[in-house]
């Protein structure tokens, strides 16, 4: 019997028992729906995390001083004061894989404008920070290298600071006081949004790092150096060059540990993406349990169906159906059930993930691969769970099947 005819016969047989066929399929529908929706949520999370991290810059390196260790007491990372502005200067001048650097000094401080005050984070940076980070100005201008050298009392405000201090007034050229010291507002940064959790990237005031060192904090060291490599590929060579340079500059002996740490955006991105990938696998794994249960439902119904139709099998055998024909008949029925269920599951899964993303606000990505996977998986479930009942049917003896009451 041709495959096409077998499929037609299977559809007909399933059509005779619409309600039962649908309920059998329901198991598969729910299973595939769950798999598709879960993978799409997982993928969505992965993609949005990756996007957010690459917004932070994918060719960036962060150099921080190491942990201070005095009289047996460790400080946290960055607690040393070993990093100097000269280190930053040397990095950009001596490392060929490095394009730009910006020393950073950070603190929090009370800021006053007229009768309003606010407590944003204060970030002392170099003039190249915009280019390194890929940030944009919404209005006004950024401070220049000459401002940095002269430790000018200029500042650039983040969006949140503007909203809280100025409440709609134009901040340009106004004087604000940071720790009682007057700063002139040069410009406003474009909005960057939340960076996960409660960390507001716009709640910041940028000032020249020299100004922050001398006038706000009174320190000689810097907290951090942001480095941009010439390209994403030269990240590892840049890391190597910086490490060698700093060890030399800090006069570290071969047996000394680094007194600094270099972190790399790509590593962070990879780690986060991997975590998201693991989550996706976990979700899909849990969801596929329901697919398995659906498959058992198919086997159950097919077994009932074989028992119910033993006479039919006998009749078919008596007019010349081979084992193979009977096997195929029931197998195709099971596969048609599971594939139809699978298709419906995919459709409802896509709709479901749309609904989830609009209600819960989670990003979801329905990938072709996940749909293909669900489809193949549901077909496999049909073959796997349909085989036993189909084989049972095909092994019947014609005369026994005909005599069955």
């Amino acid at each position, binding site marked *: 019997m041709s495959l096409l*005819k077998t499929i037609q016969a299977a559809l007909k047989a399933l059509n005779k028992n619409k309600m039962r066929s649908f309920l059998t399929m329901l198991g598969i529908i729910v299973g595939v729906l769950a798999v598709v929706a879960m993978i799409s949520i997982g993928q969505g999370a992965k993609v949005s995390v990756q996007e957010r991290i690459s917004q932070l810059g994918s060719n960036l390196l962060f150099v921080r001083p190491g942990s201070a260790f005095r009289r047996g007491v460790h400080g946290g990372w960055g607690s040393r004061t070993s990093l100097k502005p000269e280190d930053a200067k040397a990095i950009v001048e001596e490392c060929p894989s490095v394009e730009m650097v910006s020393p950073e000094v950070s603190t929090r401080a009370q800021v006053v404008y007229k009768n309003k005050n606010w407590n944003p984070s204060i970030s002392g940076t170099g003039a190249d920070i915009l280019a390194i980070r890929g940030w944009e100005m919404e209005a006004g201008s950024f401070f220049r290298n000459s401002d940095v050298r002269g430790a000018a009392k200029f500042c650039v405000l983040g969006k949140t600071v503007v909203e809280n201090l100025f409440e709609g007034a134009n901040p340009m050229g106004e004087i604000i006081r940071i720790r009682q010291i007057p700063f002139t507002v040069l410009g406003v940064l474009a909005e960057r949004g939340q960076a996960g959790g409660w960390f507001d990237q716009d709640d910041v005031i940028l000032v020249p790092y020299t100004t922050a060192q001398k006038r706000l904090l009174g320190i000689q060291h810097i907290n951090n150096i942001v480095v941009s490599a010439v390209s994403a590929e030269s990240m590892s060579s840049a890391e190597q060059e910086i490490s060698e340079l700093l060890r030399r500059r800090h006069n570290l002996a071969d047996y000394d540990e680094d007194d600094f740490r270099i972190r790399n955006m790509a590593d962070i991105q990879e780690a986060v993406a991997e975590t998201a990938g693991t989550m996706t696998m976990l979700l899909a794994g849990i969801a596929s349990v329901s697919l398995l249960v659906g498959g058992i439902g198919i086997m159950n119904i097919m077994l009932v169906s074989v028992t119910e139709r033993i006479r039919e099998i006998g009749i078919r055998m*008596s*007019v*010349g*159906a*081979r*084992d*193979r*024909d009977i096997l195929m008949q029931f197998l195709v029925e099971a596969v048609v059930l599971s594939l139809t269920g699978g298709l419906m599951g995919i459709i409802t899964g896509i709709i479901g993930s749309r609904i989830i993303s609009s209600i819960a606000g989670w990003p979801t990505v329905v990938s072709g691969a996940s749909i293909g996977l669900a489809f193949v998986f549901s077909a496999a479930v049909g073959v796997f769970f349909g085989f036993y009942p189909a084989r049972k049917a095909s092994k019947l003896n014609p*005369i026994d099947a005909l005599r069955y009451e």
Partner: protein
Amino acid sequence: MNNTEDKELIRVENLTKIYHMGEVEVVALRGVSFKVKSGDFLAIMGPSGSGKSTLMNIIGCLDKPTSGNYMLEGTEVSKLDKRQLAYVRNKKIGFVFQMFNLLPRTTALENVELPLLYANITARNRRRLAEESLALVGLSGRETHYPSQLSGGEQQRAAIARALVNNPSMLLADEPTGNVDSQSGAEIMEIFKSLNQEKKITILIVTHDMEISRSAKRMMLFRDGEIIKEQIINN
């Protein structure tokens, strides 16, 4: 199809069939031997339990003998595997059952097409052959009726159409009139008679009705798994 008369179609030698029902052995056939020539019309008679249906199932390749030989058109059937047996059932044998054995919720035409489906015949030819076969048994115009919409006699005629559709070497009928009224029974026997006389189809029919056996050319009487009498009725 080979309709040359006097050609040996079936040769059965020393056929036995023993059923094991738990501890008890039931001997259904004890050493049956006979021959059937092409074009014959043989009535197999006997009381119930005499082994005539068992013989019919073995000849129809639905069951296997415990021992003995069964040659069909010169082929030893007991040596065939399951796949080859299915082929023999499909191509060489048309079986008519007492209980009709039509597929429910399937039209008369589709029931008749069933053997052709397993013979890989194209859809168009399938339809044509099935319609011809139904016309032969006088069921033209009833193609789209379901078995439940047909009378007992009509169902049996549809079953005969199904048995004939693949142009088999022989037609085996196990009590074909046992489940229909006498009027329909007579009609069915008329169909068998004309098939034998006009189409030269070999027919083996199991019955316990003397009246029915009068239509046949030859008669074999069974008792307790043995042939106790053979008789030529009309030739």
